[in-house]
């Protein structure tokens, strides 16, 4: 894992000092709220429904045991004993006091963490494949590039007041686990026939009120020109992105309005100019960073054998464990999705337990996934059973990864001042309705995603089943979407028709899953069946006066 040097440390320390000064000026009345608000937002501090909320950056979703432990301690010291892992691989605390926020940031800085640029119209925390460095299908480890990106984007002076927020994701394998094409910029590290690495730039994707899948803008940018190409992409956007309407201000609208070809032409022109300026960190810098991401000291003699005689453990392994590139090791995902629970929430004790497990069994590494789960990326297969037992004791052995109860949900109207409807109670009711794990397994992979407003933090456009909460004359109402997906087969969901009440949406989903069970062909997931048979049979079932499978 990357470790700060004195330069990195000075930067986060300077940020803490700057924010402490800004908070003091605000509390002393030297700056008004309308001037202070963008300053606190650039430190991830929002004012939500009940209190200040702090969003802490977890750069490319990677952290070590000490950092995770600190996240648990912060939950106890400054919050109410829990945190919420988000769809951008970050963690949010819901009950922060403004007057304590600078101390909190100082505690974070003590473990090389920060809340820099986790809000505001700037380049946000970069996300990445949560299996980076571990996945069996990986071509190029994206983490060194993500770290290069982190440093480049931190306090970038030109791009701090963009038309709108800007999110970058980076992956290095064929399988896209980071919803890369649904970002402002998605970078896929690829290799050519000669074995050289290149960056494939997807620009202009996004969710929100106008979901779009990003087109390819740069086919094969040399890694040692990645920063220059990003400068070009951002500068064109900063200059020409719309500022007259915040709903049309994301880069996806610019790329869509002028067309991918014209956007590419402008980027290439700017890129040619920028290459003359020497803005790119030297090869030695990338090599220096790569040095932090070398493989941990795997036991080459580790056995691939796994004793699956405990049936509960076997179920968890089947669902939550993925193939590792190293023989004898596995990637274990901790699903923060208990039946009836709050997706992505973990108590301080659970967070500290996960930190301990990382230290003892995963080379001190953890990842946060955009599906609001936690990954232990390098677990020796011989240790898996012990890890599972410890998770089980802490209520963290939910064997439902990628099943219908592994729901992504934004905080919704229970916490968020932008929300129109609550998300969490819907997630809870769905997971309770489908509580039986055998039934969930029968339904197979089914990605269900819930947003409490059009901003789509819950990724509803990309859910096999998506739910969008809306406000209908002061009453919560839920629209249903089918057919969304992220990854290699990225697609956007289609709204079924009129919305539902909170209970109605749970019934409708159950009916839809029954249609799938009736109609599926061999090996088809819910999404595959939907794509094959279309919306009509589902619509017929969910809007029928009498239950279709009564």
């Amino acid at each position, binding site marked *: 894992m990357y470790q700060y040097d004195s330069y990195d440390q000075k930067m986060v320390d300077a940020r803490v000092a700057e924010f402490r000064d800004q908070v003091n000026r605000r509390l002393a009345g030297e700056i008004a709220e309308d001037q202070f608000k963008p300053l606190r937002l650039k430190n991830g501090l929002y004012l939500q429904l009940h209190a200040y909320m702090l969003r802490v950056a977890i750069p490319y979703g990677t952290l070590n045991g000490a950092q995770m432990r600190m996240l648990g301690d912060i939950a106890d010291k400054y919050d109410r004993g829990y945190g919420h892992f988000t769809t951008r691989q970050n963690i949010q605390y819901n009950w922060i006091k403004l007057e304590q926020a600078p101390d909190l940031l100082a505690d974070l800085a003590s473990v090389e963490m920060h809340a820099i640029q986790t809000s505001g119209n700037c380049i946000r925390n970069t996300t990445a494949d949560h299996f980076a460095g571990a996945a069996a299908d990986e071509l190029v480890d994206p983490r060194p590039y993500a770290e290069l990106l982190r440093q480049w984007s931190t306090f970038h*002076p030109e791009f701090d007041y963009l038309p709108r927020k800007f999110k970058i994701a980076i992956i290095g394998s064929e399988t896209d686990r980071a919803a890369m094409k649904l970002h402002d910029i998605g970078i896929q590290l690829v290799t050519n026939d000669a074995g050289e690495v290149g960056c494939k730039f997807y620009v202009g994707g996004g969710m929100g009120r106008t979901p779009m899948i990003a087109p390819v803008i740069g086919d094969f940018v040399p890694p040692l020109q990645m920063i220059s190409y990003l400068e070009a992409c951002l500068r064109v956007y900063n200059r020409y992105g719309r500022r007259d309407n915040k709903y049309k201000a994301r880069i996806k609208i610019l790329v869509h309005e002028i067309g991918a070809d014209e956007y590419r032409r402008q980027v290439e022109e700017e890129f040619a100019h920028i290459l003359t300026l020497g803005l790119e960190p030297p090869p*030695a810098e990338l090599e220096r960073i790569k040095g932090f991401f070398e493989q941990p000291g795997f036991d080459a003699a580790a056995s691939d054998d796994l004793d699956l005689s405990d049936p509960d453990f076997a179920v968890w392994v089947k669902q939550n464990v993925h193939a590792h590139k190293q023989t004898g090791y596995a990637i274990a995902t901790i699903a923060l999705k208990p039946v009836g629970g709050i997706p992505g929430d973990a108590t301080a004790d659970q967070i500290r337990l996960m930190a301990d497990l990382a230290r003892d069994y995963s080379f001190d590494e953890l990842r946060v996934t955009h599906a609001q789960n936690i990954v232990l990326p390098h677990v020796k297969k011989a240790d898996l059973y012990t890890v599972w037992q410890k998770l089980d004791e802490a209520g963290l052995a939910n064997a439902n990864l990628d099943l219908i109860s592994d729901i992504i949900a934004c905080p919704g109207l229970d916490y968020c001042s932008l929300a129109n409807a609550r998300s969490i109670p819907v997630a809870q009711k769905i997971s309770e309705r489908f509580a039986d794990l055998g039934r969930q397994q029968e339904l197979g992979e089914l990605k269900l995603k819930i947003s409490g407003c059009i901003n789509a933090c819950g990724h509803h456009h990309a859910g096999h089943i998506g739910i969008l909460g809306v406000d209908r004359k002061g009453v919560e109402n839920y629209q249903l979407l089918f057919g969304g997906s992220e990854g290699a087969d990225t697609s956007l969901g289609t709204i079924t028709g009129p919305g539902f009440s909170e209970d109605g949406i749970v019934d409708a989903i159950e009916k839809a899953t029954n249609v799938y069970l009736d109609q599926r062909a061999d090996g088809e997931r819910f999404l595959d069946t939907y794509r094959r048979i279309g919306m009509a049979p589902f619509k017929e079932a969910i809007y029928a006066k009498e239950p279709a499978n009564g």
Partner: protein
Amino acid sequence: MVEQNLRYRSDEPVADPAVTVDAFADQSNATAVRIEPGDDARDLLPHLDRLALVEVNFPAYTDGRGYSAARILREHGYQGELRAVGDVLLDQLSHMRRCGFDSFAPNHDIDRAAADKAFATWPEVYQKTVDGRPAIWAKRHG
């Protein structure tokens, strides 16, 4: 002309009023121009040698186009005064300086001592820009 209160240059200030980009194109003797957010700074590139002052207007601090305009001018060798005017706030001074501004005419008072403190916010910088400060990567690798 906006009353100026923060200038970080040793040469004499330009006395001429800044004209609009459109007017500048028609006036071959003008030495000062004012860029609005929607103007294209690149239109000025053929005339950099006769320019002594470029004002970049920030009608609202949230509109960050002026940062790119400034940097583009400097990247193309503009040496004259580059002045941020309008809704220029204390907490933005440091980034503006990094993008090449060397003069600031906020539409409200900014204390010079506070400004100096703001410029010292970042002991190091991660990016190479146009202010001559070495990026951290340059220091790391000599």
